[in-house]
């Protein structure tokens, strides 16, 4: 189906004129957020949410933007990551690193398994099956009352102080310390993602996005690479979910629902799915807008829906996509 013979279209530039500039600005803003955010009336937890959802969207974008396949059920792996972390803290060990590991194993593991069943599918059918799989995870989580707390969500756990051997960092009560902990994790993961995309493996994924037929005739086993990409994306998304559980000391079944999947997609597209930092920008815009709108009106759903429609109809390239085109050409 995918012939991708868009040889006559003028390609959009995939790298900005000064690729490092966006990164520098973003890191400067993130590092100083606890200073400037309160001045604008924001709060550190909001920054934490941006970071976590931004991480989820960037992980999701490994698939959408860089492999060219469209998962519409990524909330499942995010939510499973959150439950994995929560359950680890509640029942296994009071250790923040172990909680993160538990989340990644649960979300990434199930994602890897599901990925086996869908790597042959493309386009909207890929999306449809991923939505359905996401709902399986949602369904199991809310029906398994005794373990997960059902509709009320999982409570009764709290992130544990970080024990580094020589010293212990209190990230439980100090929200700024926790923010910087989040930021370090975010930095490590996005660093890994950048390395991945610059590697031969990352180029192979982009090749699949660009032209599946050509890639296959260069000897690339498409299905296996899509599966690997899906699995990696799910692991990172689950990690973001685990951080979300740590941020709130709570895991919510709505964190697995497909409406969050849709929100992850719109964040990605809004920020620019062909740009590395696009999903983070999109997440920041979306989270702040949603926060603002839901404090203003009970009809926030309409406004969120309007964001979807407006982005699709008028800003399909996303913010960074538009900026880069402006600068690059």
């Amino acid at each position, binding site marked *: 189906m995918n012939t991708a013979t868009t040889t006559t279209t003028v390609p959009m530039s995939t790298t900005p004129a000064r690729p490092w500039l966006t990164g520098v600005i973003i890191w400067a803003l993130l590092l100083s957020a606890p200073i400037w955010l309160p001045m604008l009336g924001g709060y550190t937890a909001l920054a934490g949410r941006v970071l976590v959802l931004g991480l989820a969207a960037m992980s999701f974008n490994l698939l959408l933007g860089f492999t060219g396949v*469209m998962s519409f059920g990524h909330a499942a792996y995010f939510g499973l990551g959150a439950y994995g972390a929560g359950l680890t803290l509640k029942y296994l060990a009071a250790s923040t690193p172990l909680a993160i590991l538990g989340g990644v194993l649960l979300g990434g593991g199930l994602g890897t398994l599901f990925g086996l069943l869908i790597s042959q599918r493309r*386009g909207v059918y890929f*999306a449809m099956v991923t*939505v*359905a799989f996401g709902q399986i995870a949602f369904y199991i989580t809310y029906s398994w009352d005794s373990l997960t707390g059902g509709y009320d969500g999982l409570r009764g756990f709290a992130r544990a102080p970080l024990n580094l051997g020589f010293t212990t960092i209190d990230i439980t009560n100090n929200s700024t310390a926790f923010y910087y902990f989040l930021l370090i994790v975010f930095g490590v993961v996005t660093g890994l993602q950048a390395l991945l995309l610059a590697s031969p493996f990352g180029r192979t994924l982009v090749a699949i996005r660009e032209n599946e037929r050509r890639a296959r005739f260069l000897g690339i086993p498409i299905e296996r690479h899509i599966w690997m990409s899906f699995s990696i994306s799910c692991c990172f998304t689950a990690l973001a979910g685990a951080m979300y559980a740590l941020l709130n000391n709570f895991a919510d079944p709505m964190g697995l629902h497909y409406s969050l999947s849709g929100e992850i997609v719109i964040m990605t*597209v809004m920020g620019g799915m062909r740009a590395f930092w696009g999903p983070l920008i999109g997440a920041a815009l979306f989270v702040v807008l949603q926060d603002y709108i839901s404090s203003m009106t009970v009809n926030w759903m*309409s406004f969120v829906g309007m964001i979807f429609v407006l982005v*699709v109809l008028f800003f399909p390239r996303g913010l960074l996509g538009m900026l880069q085109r402006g600068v690059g050409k």
Partner: protein
Amino acid sequence: MLQLVLFNVTNGLIIGAFYVLMALGLSLILNLSNVINFAHGNFLALGGYIAYILVPFLGFWGALIVAPLITAVFGFVIERLMIRRVYTRDPVYSLLLTFGLAFIMQDACRYIWGPNGLPMTIPDSLSTPLSADLFFITWYRIFMVAIVITAVTGLFAFLRFTRVGIRIRAGTLDLDTVAALGVNVGMLRSMNFAVGSLLAGLAGVLAAGQVGLNPNMGDDLLMPSFIAIIVGGVGSLTGTLCGGLLIGVAGALTTVVWPAASEAVIYVIMLVVLVLRPRGLMGQEGMMS
């Protein structure tokens, strides 16, 4: 015990009938336009609410006919105004568009008619049970099944015998060729979307008579409809029909033995089908890719 089984089988058939109406509409749009309509459940709700407005003026029977038609017109307009703009783009955009539309439509229903459930009156003749032994089967349930059978038969006849229907089927197989024959593909897609909306609207009226109205009434049907399509096989309307009935009845029968698992069984069926027969029960080879 027999009564319980019978009760659940009829229940399953009725639920299955709703899945079928929803899924057939979704399937039509998916096959011809390559769009997953996430707002399909909201078209269902819209059909119900329109009927709710019309009943005082036209009576139940009038509303049953007119409300789906108005829903179809609404679908036609939405397709013309918005959805057609994204056909040539990456499919992610059409999904996001219908996703946003679902949010807006649901919120609009809540804004206009309130968040709480509203009852819809149905004629007395339909609300009586069949007999004392079969007290759990009202005439309305029989009536619903009859209407769904009529609608599905009508749809298949429409696709087989009318010019537009034949073009829709041909376009599903090879849109380029249909376009090359001089058919206005844009208009064909709009009409096809309208037919899909009509089915959703009809399901909405029927559902409103059975369980009343609320803004989320279509939500619970959306996911099973996706599964009906996946199970039946993408690209095959007959498959969608069988898929919908299968998961409806399977869910209801499971209620007899293990009520808690009645929803799970739908997902299990999907997984089993995907593992054993990835293209679905009646799907064509390669249609899923």
